């Protein structure tokens, strides 16, 4: 598991490459009232890359995703998406630009059917144009949802709800998919299944940023990773190097 195959689109993004990052976060700070959650985060995601964010509870991973997707505004610093400054763009417009945020905690619309949940994923006019085709793609990826299309999402199992949330996020036809702890609170067998699905999504070439507490699984599907600690970037390296890193092994793998 220490070997990660770089995504095809990611080849040639070595230092000094001229390619523009898909996402560039620069010196971002964020507060909840007086409480500072982010202390100047700088990171980037290249097109086609899978980047993992790892860190302990309360490190600020969710907050960072919220700033990127426009749910929360950064107090300082900037977020650039496809080269454009999007620091002040509200969440609903970020979706239209191609950033899809699957929040932590399996947040489906409980009293809407699976079908309605998925079609809400394609709410923007950009995504709605190809809704039928995206729906078929999602059902090919998550066949189990096909049998449950007319069931209320709130009545699904935890794993199924997580799949609805991911499929719904993909319905937006994102250029960048932000996944916040997709394995949280799921039984180990279901976690494997969810990661299998994420692997399949990866094959389609979508750029992803994944927050995971499950460090091994998270890093083993990622090209690179950032270790976040109390709102700062502690370490940044390729996944295989992070998995070998003494400090990561001690702090997050208990080795």
């Amino acid at each position: 598991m220490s070997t990660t195959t770089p995504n095809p689109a990611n080849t040639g993004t070595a230092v000094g490459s001229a390619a523009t990052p898909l996402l560039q976060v620069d010196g971002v700070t964020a507060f909840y009232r007086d409480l500072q959650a982010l202390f100047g985060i700088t990171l980037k995601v290249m097109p086609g890359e899978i980047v993992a964010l790892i860190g302990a509870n309360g490190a600020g991973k969710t907050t960072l995703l919220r700033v990127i997707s426009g749910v929360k505004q950064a107090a300082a610093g900037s977020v650039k998406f496809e080269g454009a400054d999007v620091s002040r763009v509200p969440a609903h417009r970020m979706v239209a630009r191609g950033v899809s945020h699957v929040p932590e905690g399996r947040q489906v619309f409980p009293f809407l059917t699976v079908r309605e949940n998925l079609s809400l994923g394609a709410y923007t006019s950009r995504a709605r144009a190809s809704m039928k085709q995206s729906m078929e793609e999602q059902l090919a990826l998550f066949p189990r949802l096909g049998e449950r299309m007319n069931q209320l999402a709130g009545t699904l199992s935890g794993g199924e709800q997580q799949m609805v949330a991911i499929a719904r996020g993909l319905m937006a036809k994102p250029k960048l998919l932000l996944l916040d702890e997709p394995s949280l609170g799921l039984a180990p067998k279901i976690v494997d299944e969810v990661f299998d699905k994420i692997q399949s999504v990866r094959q389609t070439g979508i750029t992803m940023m994944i927050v995971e507490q499950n460090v091994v699984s998270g890093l083993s599907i990622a090209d690179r990773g950032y270790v976040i600690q109390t709102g700062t970037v502690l370490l940044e390296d390729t996944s295989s190097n992070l998995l070998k890193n003494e400090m990561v092994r001690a702090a997050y793998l208990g080795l």
Partner: protein
Amino acid sequence: MPRFLTDFIQACMDGLLTGALYALIGMGLALIFGVMRIVNFAHGAFLMVGMYVSWVLFDKFQVNPYIGFLISGLFLFVFGYLVYRALIQPIRDRSDFMQILMTTGIALILVDSVQLKFGADYHQTIIDLTNRPPFSFGAFTLNRAALLSFVIAGVFIVGLQQFVVRSRTGQALRAIAQNREVAPLMGINVTMIQGFSFALGIAMAGLAGGLLLPALYLFPSVGEDYTLKAFVIVVLGGMGSIEGAAIGGLVLGMTESITSAYLGQQWALAVDFILFLLVLSLKPSGIFGRQRA
């Protein structure tokens, strides 16, 4: 058919006719509550404004109230949207207490402004239809004006329900009601949809006000009872469920009508209260409702 049975059926039918208007009023309040989590204590006051709009059209321009109610609805849609932008949106995320103060304040201002402009006099709107003898079949009679407003209200009830279930905006509105945090991540402009829902809910009160005009004496605080009734309806139907509110409206109309028939008119409002307290204490999720917008 025995007399007691015909009396009972007659009371039920009368109740359904009024109940349709109650349903319209309650659905508006439920829509606003579902999408914004704001209890609109000014709902009856907006209804009253709708009645005055229709009355002015009738009094000054001889517009029949059964046409004028459409203009009441339209006027209140725009007015409701402006009130939302000016007064509701700024306190959207504040405490429940703040929201109660705000909507109660709006109600007071509306009632007082109307009183300043039109005085506290009672007005009656007499149209041809209300003077015609009631429509009768077998042992039963139905008031023609009430029958017409029942049909019109029915069209709007079904229309609103279909709009919420089928349209893209309706889907967005239900998404916000069920998970306001996640709705923006779908690309939904929550502020815009909330403003639209508030305006639509107020427009429903305006339509109902216009339709009620021929049946009621008009005076500035005529809407007060309707704020209470709207609460009862929404609580009966399960907070925030617009389908539940439609049924709740019909049930309230029938309950009132049966109460008036057997105990006398003065008991009707008391029964509203009793129903309200019973539902709140026995089944707070409403009689017909799971939580669903």
